[in-house]
């Protein structure tokens, strides 16, 4: 089934490319109620035009994108919530239609990779700083006699400290 859809899609791509380059929403599609129309636009930006290459249905003038836009608006007029509309569109066209993938098991790595990497990198940097300060604090700890000598040289009564090394 998926393969058939894919073939169908790639056939349509040729047609879409011919007429291509995005004319988006047509005047006759625009809803009378500005609030509903604004919701429709917000929804369409997140839905992929299935026959286009990486365009949302809001940007695309392919016939299928128009159908989807009209569909979204019909559901809105029928009083569906945004989530219901998304669920409806996904049930018909699959996850592929969502430009913002849902947080479900097979997209966990997608969503979690960046925050986890950020944490790991932060931890790495903190570790780097800690290890460096440790090393810089005691590259070669002074022996007891050296300490005494240092004390002598820098202490309150060390006025003629000619020795520097």
């Amino acid at each position, binding site marked *: 089934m998926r393969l058939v859809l894919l073939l169908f899609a790639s056939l349509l791509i040729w047609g879409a490319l011919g007429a*291509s380059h995005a004319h988006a929403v047509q005047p006759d599609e625009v809803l009378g109620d500005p609030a509903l129309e604004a919701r429709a636009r917000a929804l369409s930006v997140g839905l*992929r035009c299935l026959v286009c*290459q*990486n365009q949302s249905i809001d*940007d695309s003038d392919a016939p299928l994108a128009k159908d989807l836009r009209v569909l979204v608006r019909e559901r809105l007029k029928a009083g569906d919530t945004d989530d219901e509309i998304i669920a409806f569109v996904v049930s018909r066209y*699959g*996850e592929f239609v969502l430009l913002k993938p849902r947080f479900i098991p097979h997209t966990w790595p997608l969503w979690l990779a*960046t925050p986890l990497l950020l944490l790991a*990198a932060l931890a790495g940097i903190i570790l780097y700083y800690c290890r460096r300060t440790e090393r810089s604090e005691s590259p070669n700890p002074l022996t007891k006699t050296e300490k005494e000598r240092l004390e002598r040289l820098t202490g309150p009564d060390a006025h003629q400290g000619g020795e520097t090394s």
Partner: protein
Amino acid sequence: MITEIGHYVLILALGIAIIQTVLPVLGTRLNDPRLAAVSVPAAQAQFLLICLAFGALTAAYVTSDFSVLNVWQNSHSAKPMLYKISGVWGNHEGSMVLWVLILALFGAAVATFGSNLPRQLQANVLAVQGAIAVAFLLFIIMTSNPFLRLDPAPLDGQGLNPVLQDPALAFHPPFLYAGYVGFSMAFSFAVAALIDGRIDAAWARWVRPWTLAAWMCLTIGIAMGSWWAYYELGWGGFWFWDPVENASFMPWLAGTALLHSALVMEKRDALKVWTILLAIITFSLSLMGTFLVRSGVLTSVHAFAVDPERGVFILGIMAVFVGGAFALFAWRAPLLSQGGLFAPISREGSLVLNNLLLTVACAAVFVGTLYPLALEAVTGEKISVGPPFFNLTFVPLIVPLLIAMPFGPLLAWKRGDLLAVAQRMTVAAIVSLTAIITALALNQQGPWLAPLGIGLGLWLIMGAGTELASRAKLFDASLGESWRRLRNLPRAAFGGALAHAGIGVMVLGLVATTAWRVERIEALSPGGTLDIAGYELTFDGVRESLGPNYKELTGVFQVTRGGSPVTTLEPSKRAFAVEKSATTEAGIYNALGGDLYVVLGDSLQDGAFTVRVYFNPLVRLIWLGALVMFFGGAVSLSDRRLRVGAPKRAKSKPSVAVTAGE
């Protein structure tokens, strides 16, 4: 005949590249300086040969020699000369020849101007460059030969994709490639340093200008692509998080991080291992960009060339170079010693933060671009990752970086005083807070984040100004003294400040146009009018005309403001007969405070047309910002300190060049 010469010299170039790869490595192994020195003439000869090959291909395009398969597929005799020439790299085979040409150019530059480099480093760098050239020349000759002939020769060609017949897109690929390939210099220097097992500040001095030049080209290349998308794709978008855009954006992010970490290495001899790793990562991402675009694994607007065989070949090249470099890194990097110490709050520390956020942001783009491909390959499940994903992952990483950015250059090296820096930023903070409050007052219906964005943009611009002012001790010293100090500042300081201010300018444009864009979509009959953002548009009707290789339908719109005429806009649709496709040309008027953007849509009944009109406030600041960044890079590149190499000093005092540490 010329074509056969081109084919021949391309194969000769492969031979030379093999010599350039093998002999210098042998020479440095056997301690034979004469053998190692072969790398210099080899790199120069390789450049000459590839120049000849590129020239031969260009000649075939200019003369419309349709007996050459590649010319027949991608050109047409009726095409304007500019697009005949840009057609050379407007297709897969030709663009790969351009790729190796730029690679050879960089190699020849190191050979010719690198006489003050340590001999061994130069030989190793050229050997690595040679190896990259071998791989890509093999790729061209075996899978993507542009010099194949057709017999019998067809009468005329099939034409170039009309979308590519555009001045901005004609020069978009050369800049992009110069950026991609320019990062190969950083890569070659990194690998050479790993082979040597030694690296010092002189290394960073050599790598920085190359990386900077590559970064500049990539910046302008990406900006050109975005500008093109803005006026050509017909809905006024400028960035789509399209995989191919991401493919060029990832090396840009990593390259930006590399520029900054190389700064730490040059000035403070610290972050060496990280800089080497970043150099490898940056070029790996460039290779991946080439792979993604050239293999056609992506479904995207840009993937014009689709051929899996080639994809596998480039994947092989990637595996060898990326895998090899990482293996070498794992093996040799522990030999590189640690450099200067610094506190977390310091110039170095701020650059570490810069690198952290830039690389993680780059990783976010990487995951978003490649995860769908990986998922589909493994499970067959198809998902889309679009702009909402990147807005949620990339933006939260970049915003803190931008907020922190003005602090970095004000902090002292080694140990900085955050409080003192914050005091110096008071003026900038007041200006941006005022802007935020004003914007909030003017913009009471939201979007609520936009005023903050405007404040951020101003914060960046003011921050760059603050940096220069504080370096000149403005208000602390007499005006004359400040002026003297300002004049004596190294150009790199101006360059850096300019580039940072450029980002601020870009942020202003991005925020304003995203938040306050106005749109009207209407069906207009001739004589009909439409109001937008204080302008009134009158539709005068359409006229048909003939271009050099297309038919054009132009809509004429009179634009007035308050009754007085402003301009006439003529958006059009072009139908290309040879290529059997069409493009839209938006009518754009650069008004005060934004762009008036008109697109002629479909024809309706009774001479009416769907008309789309947008007002895009401050949108040009996006590309102006990119230009300022480019210019900042150029100013920095002209700094004497970058041109005068440090290696001489390092040679005379070999103890400075840290060899195998503990």
